[in-house]
């Protein structure tokens, strides 16, 4: 149990965090070919849910059917790139930003969806990372014949450049970082992370804070963590938690020394997502098998971290024969549960259970 769970001063902290009732979900049954699978969905701030599929043959691209707030198909999204089977698509207040693999294997580029494919950022090595203030953090690694740079740029929710590329680190080809990443705090500062080859420490993860305008807040620093970098979690106290293996450490903007991440953050096995309007946290059941689907699929916590309750799966989602399972939270609080099954008339079927605005 976390201290926050038993702290009497936080007795009102859970007000409004847990929905009073769980209505019947909107259900969408989708079928696709045998060489595809269901993947996570994403929901924008307007209630549009992009339901994802993944081509298992080329394993480099995914496609989405965007469902409007009325449940009907709003538009299709093709050609979003995937890495490690995860589609790179970031929900925005209205629409999405996606990562497209351009002329494989030339480069990755960021595109605005659904309007078109005008490339707003492009490089051979490029990461598209969520920004809780809206838009995205792009970390790229451009090179020339004798040098590389890590540079960070910020995009707004429409894919327009909010801040131009700012250099985070540079060096000679022999000490090029093998991996880069980063995350953004709820106040807009970005923590860019990279493996420590430039410092002779390939076994270390380094970081550098950049402010919301792209100016450095610190020098590069050793985070005290080891690769691989596996993600970041923004917390409502403005800190950003770095995830590497089982290790989770929190950094406040401008801090080069880690703090211990809260116990509930360290112990969480699912994706930690912010609730709309910074109303708390949702811990989403990690992708897995449907046998787990009878468990609580979302754990809800107050801004303090206090456990408030959860949301359990619909019994209709617990199908036998299910082979995959995802839970996602849209920006507007829409909860989306995906169950993949092979028991359908044609190939693979994906059942989506959608609760519009449930966790708003």
């Amino acid at each position: 149990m976390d201290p926050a769970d038993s702290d009497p001063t936080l007795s009102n902290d859970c007000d409004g965090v847990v929905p009073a009732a769980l209505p019947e979900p909107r259900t969408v049954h989708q079928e696709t070919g045998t060489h595809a699978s269901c993947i996570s969905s994403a929901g924008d701030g307007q209630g549009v849910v992009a339901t994802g599929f993944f081509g298992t043959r080329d394993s480099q691209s995914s496609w989405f059917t965007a469902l409007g707030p009325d449940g009907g198909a709003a538009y299709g999204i093709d050609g979003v790139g995937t890495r490690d089977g995860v589609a790179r698509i970031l929900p925005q207040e209205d629409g999405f930003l996606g990562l497209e693999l351009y002329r494989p294997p030339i480069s990755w580029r960021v595109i605005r969806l659904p309007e078109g494919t005008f490339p707003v950022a492009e490089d051979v090595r490029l990461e598209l990372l969520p920004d809780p203030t809206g838009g995205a953090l792009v970390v790229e690694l451009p090179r020339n014949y004798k040098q590389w740079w890590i540079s960070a740029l910020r995009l707004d929710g429409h894919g327009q450049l909010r801040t131009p590329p700012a250099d985070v680190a540079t060096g000679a080809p022999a000490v090029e970082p093998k991996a880069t990443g980063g995350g953004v705090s709820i106040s807009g500062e970005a923590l860019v992370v990279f493996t420590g080859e430039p410092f002779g420490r390939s076994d270390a993860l380094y970081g550098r804070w950049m402010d919301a305008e792209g100016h450095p807040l610190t020098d590069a620093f050793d985070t005290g963590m080891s690769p691989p970098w596996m993600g970041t979690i923004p917390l409502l106290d403005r800190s950003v938690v770095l995830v590497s293996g089982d290790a989770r450490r929190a950094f406040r903007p401008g801090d080069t020394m880690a703090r211990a991440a809260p116990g509930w953050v360290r112990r969480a096995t699912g994706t930690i997502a912010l609730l709309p309007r910074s109303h708390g946290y949702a811990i989403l059941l990690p992708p897995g098998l449907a046998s787990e689907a009878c468990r609580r699929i979302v754990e809800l916590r107050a801004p303090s971290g206090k456990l408030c309750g959860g949301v359990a799966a619909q019994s209709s989602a617990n199908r036998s024969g299910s082979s995959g399972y995802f839970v996602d939270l849209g920006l507007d609080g829409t909860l989306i549960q995906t169950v993949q099954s092979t028991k359908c008339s044609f190939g693979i079927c994906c059942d989506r259970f959608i609760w519009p605005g449930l966790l708003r």
Partner: protein
Amino acid sequence: MRLLIAIVLVASSAHAAADDCTGLVPELPGGGTVATVGDDSRSGESCFRPGTIDGRGAILVFHSSSTGEGIVLAQGGAVVARFPSGALDLQAVYPQSDGFLLATQKIVGTDYVATLSGVSHDGAMRGSTSWTVGHAPPGSFTLGPENVAFLPGPDGGVIALRAESSSPDAEAAWRITAQRIDASGGGPAPTLLGAGPGPIPNVSGAVVNDGSLLLLVPGFFLDGFRDNQMVGRWFAPGLTPSTEFFVAVSQSIGPFSATSLADGSAAVRASDWWRGRTEPGSQSVVLPPAWLPSYPPALFMLPGKRGAAVVLERPIVDPGDCEQHIEVRAPAGNLCGILRVPMEKRADGFCLAGPLSVGIGADGTLIENPGVAGNRCSFRFWPRLFANP
């Protein structure tokens, strides 16, 4: 005061010229003229690359048949010359005021050799210049290296842009040269544009109305620049630098090119998008005109630099009005009108319209590409339709 008024009038007149639509949009008279250079209903016979027309109205067509592949020149509806050429060798055709410059690239021994050959309107071979542009490993058969580019000039001729090793150690240093080749296929010695350390870059660019050259080089090859930047440098008509190297496109790593526009500037394209417009001697890059076609071959400059024509996208198979639409724009980019060109309906009732369905020659001749009466070796054209009034 009288002097001041005169100056104002001149300035006003100069401004008006850029957006002047007078005489730009022709009326399409009758059914045009038909030239037939072969019959693709015969086994093994076909025609490619139609619609390249010189300033005298000679039409150059790539033709293949069971007896071989070659280039056919027709004028006034009649074939005037045929000569052999390998289909894979021919890279581009640059129409001249009289005749054409043919760009070929082929493997000779273990080298890629690029050649520009001058051909007159009646098919007479004038001369040629060749460059060894790279080593061809055994078994090579595809296009060669990208370290050579041919940039058509505004008044004819071509600038051959070439990047090559400037050292016996090919990885150590490079230099870029420009050589003017006129319609005869020859020209003066190359001029050195720049040199630097590192591997040999690929090059591209454009020559604009006043003869200035925009050189484009990927940033990977230049100190201080990056691989997701396309770097430009302007050179005056005498090929002396008029700017430093500057970022012409950022956040792009894909194929790149530039094209001259009727207003004297150059538009820059990268990763399949028009990304900017820049003027001679300037390092600033502004947004490209929104009317530039997504498919670059659909853009034609009109004779005398009087404007531009854009062959619009149409349904590939159009059961409707079967017309190709051509936007005609003044040098400033304003739309002057749309020319509607009737296309021939096939027997099944469909027509083949689209950006490749018509072409506009250097002399302003409009030519239809799908063929006449189903014969792709037969062309309908309207001589000098877009020529100066």
